[in-house]
C-alpha cells in the first residue's frame, strides 16, 4: 500500500487572489481512510487534482512512499480520482465505462468482461452491463464511478464528495459501501467532504482545511474534544465559549474561576470552550457555579437546557432522565469538568496554521 506525503503543497491560480492551497503539509497513512474536510471553496478538489496529477502544483512536493511523483504522468501514478459529478462517459455503456481503465492497460477483452462482472457484484448492481449512464439514478451512477476506479486496483483512491449529490438514505448506504470496500481492499483513500459529521463517521483521520490552509489533522473525536481554535470548534458546532484570561492552569472569566489543565495557549487572553455534553447540571464542588434554568427541550435521546450564569447563557445537554429534575426558573449548581474544558486562543489568527494537538 501507499503512504502519501504532501509537503509545502501550494496552488496559486492567479496572483491577485490568495492561494487556493497554501503550504499544505500532510501525512496520509497507508491503507487508511483520510477525510479532507472544509467548507466549499477551501481547496479540497484542487488538492485532490494535484495528488492525481491532473493539476500542476505551484510549489511543494507530493511523495508516494517517500518518492516524489511530480514528474509522473497522471495515467501512471496509480492514484485514481472519482469526481464529484461521476462523469460516466455518456457514449459508452456501463460495461465499457467500468472496463475503460483496463482497456487502456491493454487487458484482453475476456478478462475485462469477467472483472467488470466482479465489480458490478461488488457495488451491488449485477446485470447492469448494457445500460447507458443516462438510464441510471444518481446513486447508481456513483456506484459505477466507484467500480470504474476500483477495477484498476489503484494504490491511492481519491473520492471527491462522493456522497454530496445523494439523498439521505442513499448516503448512508453508500457510506457503508465505501467503508466496507476500503477496509476489504485496504486502499489508501482520501475522501473529500464539507460535512463534518460525515468526516467524523467515516474517516480514520480528518484533515480540516480553511481557505487552503490546514487547520487541524487529527483523529475524528479530537475535533470535538480538543479543537485547535475557536473557528474549528465553531465549524464542528454547538460549543460554549466563555472569554477570559488564562493564568497558571486557571481560566478567570466573568462568571468565575475554573481549573483548566488543557490549554493550547500560553498565559494571556483566551477562550474557555466546553461542549454542551460536558456541562454537568445539579453537581456542585470544584469548578461549579450557580445558574438558572431558562428553558429546556426534551429531544428523545437527550434533553437540551439553556442556562443563565451571571450575564452569559450556555447550553447543556443531558440524559433525558434529568428533564424531570429541573424546572424552568430553578437555581442549580452547574459544573464544568476540568478534563473537558479546552482553552483556546481568543481568535484563530493566533494559532499556528497546521498545528496538531499532542
Amino acid at each position, binding site marked *: 500500500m501507499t503512504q502519501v506525503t504532501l509537503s509545502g503543497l501550494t496552488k496559486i491560480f492567479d496572483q491577485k487572489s490568495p492561494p487556493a492551497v497554501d503550504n499544505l503539509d500532510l501525512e496520509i497513512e497507508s491503507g487508511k481512510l483520510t477525510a479532507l474536510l472544509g467548507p466549499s471553496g477551501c481547496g479540497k478538489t484542487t488538492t485532490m487534482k494535484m495528488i492525481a496529477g491532473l493539476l500542476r502544483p505551484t510549489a511543494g512536493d507530493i511523495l508516494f512512499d517517500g518518492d516524489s511523483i511530480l514528474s509522473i504522468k497522471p495515467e501512471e501514478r496509480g492514484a485514481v480520482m472519482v469526481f464529484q459529478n461521476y462523469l460516466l462517459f455518456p457514449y459508452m455503456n456501463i460495461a465499457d465505462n467500468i472496463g475503460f481503465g483496463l482497456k487502456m*492497460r491493454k487487458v484482453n477483452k475476456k478478462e475485462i468482461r469477467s472483472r467488470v462482472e466482479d465489480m458490478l457484484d461488488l457495488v451491488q448492481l449485477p446485470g447492469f452491463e448494457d445500460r447507458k449512464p443516462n438510464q441510471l439514478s444518481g446513486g447508481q451512477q456513483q456506484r459505477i464511478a466507484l467500480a470504474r476506479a476500483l477495477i484498476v486496483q489503484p494504490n491511492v483512491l481519491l473520492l471527491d464528495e462522493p456522497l454530496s449529490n445523494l439523498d439521505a438514505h442513499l448516503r448512508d448506504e453508500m457510506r457503508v459501501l465505501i467503508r466496507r470496500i476500503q477496509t476489504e481492499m485496504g486502499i489508501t483513500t482520501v475522501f473529500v467532504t464539507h460535512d463534518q459529521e460525515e468526516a467524523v463517521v467515516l474517516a480514520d483521520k480528518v484533515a480540516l482545511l480553511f481557505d487552503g490552509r490546514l487547520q487541524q489533522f487529527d483523529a475524528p473525536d479530537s475535533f470535538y474534544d480538543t479543537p485547535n481554535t475557536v473557528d474549528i470548534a465553531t465549524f464542528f458546532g454547538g460549543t460554549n465559549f466563555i472569554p477570559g484570561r488564562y493564568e497558571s492552569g486557571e481560566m478567570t472569566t466573568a462568571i468565575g474561576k475554573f481549573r483548566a489543565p488543557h490549554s493550547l495557549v500560553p498565559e494571556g487572553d483566551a477562550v474557555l470552550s466546553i461542549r454542551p455534553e460536558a456541562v454537568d447540571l445539579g453537581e456542585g464542588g470544584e469548578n461549579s457555579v450557580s445558574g438558572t434554568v431558562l428553558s429546556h427541550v426534551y429531544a428523545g435521546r437527550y434533553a437540551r437546557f439553556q442556562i443563565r450564569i451571571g450575564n452569559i447563557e450556555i447550553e447543556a445537554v443531558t440524559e433525558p432522565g434529568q428533564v424531570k429534575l429541573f424546572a424552568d426558573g430553578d437555581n442549580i449548581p452547574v459544573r464544568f469538568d476540568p478534563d473537558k474544558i479546552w482553552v483556546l486562543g481568543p481568535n484563530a489568527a493566533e494559532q499556528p496554521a497546521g498545528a496538531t494537538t499532542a
Partner: protein
Amino acid sequence: MTTAPAPLPGIAPRTIGRTTLRWAGIMGLLAFLVAPMVPLFIWSISFRWFYPDILPSEYSARAWEQVISPTNNVIGATGQTTLIALLCTVLSVLLGVPAGRALGLHNFKGKRIVEVLILAPIIVPGLAVVLGIDTMFIRYGLSGNILGVTLVHLVPTLPYMTLVMSGVYANYDVDYELQARSLGAGRWATQRYVTLPAVFPGVVVGALFTFLISWSQYVLTLLIGDGQVETLPILLFNFARSEPAIAGALSVVFILPGILVLLLSSKYLSGDSAAVGGIGNI
C-alpha cells in the same frame, strides 16, 4: 435489491413522435430546396420554350450532352470545385477545432473582442476583404491557382467552423478528459475515446457546411482565381446569359451536394446532440 435491466417505460412512443417530426421537417426542407430545381431541370431538357407556354414545346438532351462533353470542361470544373472544397474543409477542421476549443473552454481577457473579430469576415462583404487580400496574394504567387483559391475560401469558412466548435466546447466538461487520464488513458487515447465522440457531431456539421460554403463561392474564386481557376459557379455564370439550357443542367449538378449534405447532417442537426449550439451562442 436490483432488478434485471428492462427498457424504461415511456421512451419508445416519445422516440417515434420525435422521429416522425424530424422526417416531416426534412421533407419540408427538401421540397423547399427541390422546388426551384424543377424549372432549372426543365430548362436543361428544353429545346424551344417561349412565353406564354407553361412547358417547352420541344425537348432535347443537347444541354446534358454539352455538360458531359469535354469541350466545356464541366467534369474538370466539378473535380476542381470538389478538390478546393475538400482542401478547404480539411484546413478548416484542422484550424477551427482547436480555435473553437480555446474559445469555448477558456475565459480570457478580450475574449469578446476575439469573438467579434472572428465574426467580422462573415459580416463584412467578402468582396471588401478580398480586395485587400488580392494584392498580397499576387505578390506571394497565390493568385490564379488552386492553393490561393483554397486559402481565400477560408475567409468565410474558418469563422464558421470556429464558431460551431466553440459552441460545442462551451457545453463540454473538460473534467471528462481529466477523468480518463486518471483512469489510465494517455493523451491520445483520451482524445480518441473521450473527446472525439463528444465533439464529433459538431465537427461533422461544421465540415459539411464548410464544404458547401466553399463549393458555392463565386466572387472570391473569380478574384483570386483570376480566370485561371475554373469552378462550377464560374462556369455556371458564364453560361447563364448565353446558354440557359446548359446553365439549367449545370445548376442541377451544382445543387446536388447541398441536398446530400442536408440528408447527411440531418441526424446531427435535429438529433439530441448540441452540435449546432454554437450558432445560438452568438
